[in-house]
């Protein structure tokens, strides 16, 4: 269970949110909504262990944020897809997954196939479209063994089929006992999603 207690975040002179407490159970999907600049990305970054929270605690079962076991259980996909323009899709994917847990090459090729990038393994990422780059990042999501997925605007630049594919993967992941927190401004048809309005 992911337990967030009494969280506050301040950016400059702006208090983005304060006294925020919620829990996400195994299999839970939490959609974080709110206007631009209300702190959705900051919240996800804090839960990912990137930002320092001003106040409050974050625990996954008994592991506190930034502990090794906690970070091992987290997968974070931010606004940036974390791809190097000079490397090929496969090389980028290999490195991204290795940062979490190494994955064998056939499984990586399979992941690229699943996100619709079959035949693009050796294409340089500089030559891909925005949506295709997003798909490479999502391929690393598919192969991630992390329990908690933190996805910041995962549907950006994706076509409707792409959005559907990501939603299917989120549902499948949560059915297998994972959890997912995501932000989006688009409509989402995910079942059983809870909504947190900031």
């Amino acid at each position, binding site marked *: 269970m992911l337990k967030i207690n009494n969280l506050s975040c301040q950016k400059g002179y702006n208090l983005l949110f304060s006294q925020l407490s919620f829990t996400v159970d195994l299999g839970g999907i939490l959609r974080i909504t709110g206007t631009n600049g209300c702190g959705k990305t900051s919240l996800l970054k804090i839960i990912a262990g*990137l930002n320092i929270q001003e106040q409050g605690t974050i625990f996954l079962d008994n592991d506190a944020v930034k502990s*090794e076991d906690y970070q091992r259980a987290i997968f974070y996909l931010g606004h*940036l897809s*974390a791809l190097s323009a000079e*490397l090929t899709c496969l*090389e980028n994917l290999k490195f991204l997954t290795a*940062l979490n847990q190494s994955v064998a090459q056939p499984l990586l090729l399979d992941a690229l196939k699943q996100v619709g990038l079959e035949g693009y393994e050796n294409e340089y990422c500089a030559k891909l479209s925005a949506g295709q780059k997003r798909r490479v990042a999502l391929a690393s999501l598919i192969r991630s063994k992390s329990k908690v997925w933190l996805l910041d605007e995962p549907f950006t630049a994706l076509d409707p089929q792409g959005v559907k594919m990501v939603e299917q993967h989120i549902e499948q992941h949560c059915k297998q006992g994972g959890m997912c927190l995501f932000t989006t401004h688009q409509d989402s048809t995910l079942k059983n999603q809870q909504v947190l309005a900031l």
Partner: protein
Amino acid sequence: MNIYLQTLMRDLNSAIRNLSSILNPLLFFIISISLFPLAISPEASTLSQIAAGIIWVASMLAVLLSLNSLFHHDFDNGILEQMLISHHSLPLLILSKIVAHWLLTGVPIILLSPLLGVFLFLDDESIKVLMLTLLLATPSLSLIGAIGASLIVSIKNSGMLLSLLILPLYIPILIFASSAVSQAQAGLEIDAQLYFLATILIVSLMLAPFISALSLKISLE
């Protein structure tokens, strides 16, 4: 292959595919040194006296030129974020990047230095000492430089700031290294200078990855 080796290979790979990023500082190194004989005097006695200083200043500035790109690309495309939240040791990941940086700038400078030494009329013994000082000190340049590069990673066009931050820390290395070569030219002992350079290397090897990791965390806030 473990993640630290993969980080190293990844950096080498991207640099080789973007050759201008490696060649720019090296060309600066060669061109700036080759202008001195034209500007000062082509005489052997004059040039050999200032050769060590010229080569050392040029290599320092060349390393400084290349430092800007050490973390900038990974910051811009979000890879630093992923490194920060991964469960692997951030200082070791940074050390891998620093090693890659040294292999791409320090090593070519060491390999080019005998040629430039001959060009400036350094004798054989002094060229050996020059190479030894470069071998001992260019890793320190990359290590100390990484601290500066991680502090300014989120600031655009920060070359000037980087020089201001880093050059004062480079001064001791410059003094000991160039004095080692001029002592060797005079036929004196150079042990003390080499020990100092080795000490700076060991201390920066122990501290720089940690300080750099800490400042990256602050920069990514």
